[in-house]
């Protein structure tokens, strides 16, 4: 069975995560599309911390018998991986766009210089 303290601490941490992400969105420092994964992470972790019997059941499904909160770590780690992967795609796209901008800029500058 999950110790009560673990559930409380995990719930507080999840709420903190959600609040921080919401504040970042509100103040315009984080775009919604990139915040979505973080919000889902926070909500899922919050649900799993509060819904204690559910956590035990899920732990049973995946064969964790001794320490159900390990599910919290696993889910947390999974979401962090997803977020990182998502960022890799974002960076790749930005990189391509950056290259294209540099090329267009260089060609435009060249045209301007030859005109003057």
């Amino acid at each position, binding site marked *: 069975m999950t110790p009560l303290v673990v559930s409380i601490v995990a719930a507080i941490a999840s709420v903190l995560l959600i609040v921080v992400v919401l504040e970042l969105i509100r103040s315009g420092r984080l775009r919604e599309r990139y915040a979505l994964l973080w919000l889902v992470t926070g909500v899922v972790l919050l649900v799993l911390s509060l819904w204690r019997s559910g956590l035990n059941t899920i732990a049973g499904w995946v064969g964790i018998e001794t320490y159900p909160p390990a599910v919290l770590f696993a889910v947390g780690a999974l979401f962090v991986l997803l977020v990182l992967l998502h960022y890799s795609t974002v960076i790749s796209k930005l990189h391509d766009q950056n*290259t294209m901008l*540099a*090329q267009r*800029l*260089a*060609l435009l*500058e*060249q045209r301007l210089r*030859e005109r003057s």
Partner: protein
Amino acid sequence: MTEVVTESRPAGGSAAPAAVRRIAIVPAFNEQECVADVIEEIRAFDPDFAIVVVDDGSTDATAAAAERLGAHVVRLPFNLGIGGAVQTGFRYAFENGFGLAVRVDGDGQHDPAQLGALLAPVLADEADIAIGSRFRETLGGESESFRSSRTRRMGISILAWTVSLLVRRRVTDPTSGFQALNRRAIALFAADYPHDYPEVEAALMVHKHQLRMTEVPVQMRERSAGRSSIGALASVYYMVKVLLALFVGLFRKNVTPLEEVK
């Protein structure tokens, strides 16, 4: 030799074709010592060639050296790597209506005196892209003048074998950047060109787009200044990366070449 090539026209161009406008694309990164020689050698081969030097974010006087000789200079605001630089050249060639492009690297390893042989199959409309190969035999015999480290040659032959398998024809020098291209090939590469070490993946692109590719035996020179962009450990990384890119490239959606604006 030079005059013959200058005069020749694409086969079947009986309807009084305007001479194809030609351009030499010279990618250069910190090549202030070499780039002037390269420009002069291209002019010595054929003064009608337009020359565009793509300065890939050099921190030395590469651009100034090229401008002094009257070449068109496109200065990238920061270093994009050879793929990004060469693509810039293709874009320039496409946007300015050139029908024929050759790539001659600014480090001097490509000898402009050999452009005649490289251009021949493209001018004769037998190929959309001709690639200068260090490893293809000349008619007379072996073309083994190329000196390179054993590891690098082994790497090249692994790539050559893989590429040959993928494009179902013999490719001996898939890393060669010494190339001549017609407008069809220019339009394709202006739209999309691989990054980092692009020639290998480009060979696959050419195959997927059903362009005609041919290899021409050439000799390359030692780099007169500067260092090769590929070190020992880096070349292993390069191999793995290129093989991965080739594999992924097989399943990638084809890009659309740039459209001609009428």
